C-alpha cells in the first residue's frame, strides 16, 4: 500500500487549492500598546533539539509585529516563521538547535512581540505540533505562552 502512495499522488497531481487568505488583524485603537509574550517548551528530562508550535490569538485586538529568539543559547537565533503571518493573529514558529548542550525542563524558546489595540488581555491558543530530541525523533513535551508579567497561558 505504501508503494501505491506515490503512484496515487502522481496520478492525481498536486492540485491543492489556493492558499486561503490569512486572517486580517483588527485596526489599531487610540490606546495601542506593545507587549511581549514568551513561548515556553517543557520537555521534561529530555534534551530539546527542535520544536514547532502554532500560536493563535483567539480573542483581543492583537497583531503580531515581531519574533525573537531566546536568551537560552541553544535557541538564541530568531526562529523560522511565515513572514506573511506578521500583522496576523496566527503563526507557526519553529526552530532547531545543533548546540552541544541542549536544554531540558521548561525552556523559553522564543518571544513574540505584539501590538495590543485595547487594554483587554489577549487569549492565546498554543499547539505544540512537534518537539524533537537530539536524534531527530519526536519527544513528549508541552508548550505554553507566558507574558513577561509571569501569567501562564497553557
Amino acid at each position, binding site marked *: 500500500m505504501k508503494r501505491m502512495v506515490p503512484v496515487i499522488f502522481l496520478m492525481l497531481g498536486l492540485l491543492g487549492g489556493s492558499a486561503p487568505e490569512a486572517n486580517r488583524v*483588527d485596526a*489599531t485603537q487610540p490606546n495601542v500598546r506593545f507587549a511581549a509574550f514568551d513561548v515556553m517548551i517543557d520537555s521534561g528530562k529530555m534534551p530539546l533539539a527542535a520544536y514547532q508550535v502554532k500560536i493563535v490569538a483567539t480573542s483581543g485586538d492583537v497583531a503580531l509585529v515581531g519574533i525573537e529568539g531566546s536568551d537560552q543559547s541553544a535557541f538564541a537565533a530568531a526562529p523560522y516563521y511565515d513572514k506573511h503571518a506578521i500583522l496576523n493573529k496566527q503563526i507557526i514558529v519553529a526552530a532547531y538547535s545543533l548546540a552541544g548542550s541542549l536544554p531540558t525542563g521548561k525552556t523559553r524558546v522564543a518571544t513574540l512581540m505584539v501590538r495590543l489595540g485595547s487594554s483587554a488581555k489577549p487569549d492565546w491558543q498554543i499547539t505544540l505540533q512537534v518537539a524533537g530530541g537530539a536524534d531527530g525523533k519526536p519527544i513528549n513535551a508541552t508548550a505554553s505562552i507566558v507574558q513577561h508579567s509571569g501569567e501562564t497561558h497553557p
Partner: protein
Amino acid sequence: MVAAINAGDLSAFDALFERHRDWVARLAMRFTSNSSDALDVLQETFTYLFGKFPGFVLSAKMTTFLYPVVRNLSIAARKRRLPGLPAEGFDAAGPELASNDDDEFLSMIRRLPEIQREVLLMRFVHDMSLAEIAGAIGIPEGTVKSRMHNAIETLKGDERLRKYFD
C-alpha cells in the same frame, strides 16, 4: 513587468512593487485616513496581486486593476475600525483630514457630490487618465468627463476660487 514575473523573473516583483507602492499607499491613505490601516491595505493589496502570479493576465492599466482592489480593502479596513459605518458611500476625505483641515479649498472639495469628487481626485491626485478612471469605476468615459466638468464648474462658481481659474 507582468510578463517578466510570469516568466520567472523574481526581480520584477521588486520593480512592480516600487512602481506602484506609493500610488497604492496614497490611495489607501485617502480612503482610510489612517496610516496604520493604509499599510494594512497596502500589504493586502500586493499580497492579492502577487498571489495571482504566475499566470496573471493584465487586460488594462495596472492602476485600473488596483483601484477597486484598494477601495474594497479600504472599506473592509474602515468597517473593522468603525463597525457602524455603511459599506458604500463612505466619505473619502475621512475624519483625519477633517480634523486637520484649515484650508477652505479642501473643505469645498469635500462638499462636492461624491461621484464628482472621486473623479476629480482620481485625475488630479492619483494621476489617472480619463480612460483609467472609467475602467476603474466601471462607467463610460463620457460619464467621467461629465462628472469632471460638473465638479470643476462647481469650484469655478465659488468666488474664492475664481481667481485661480482666470
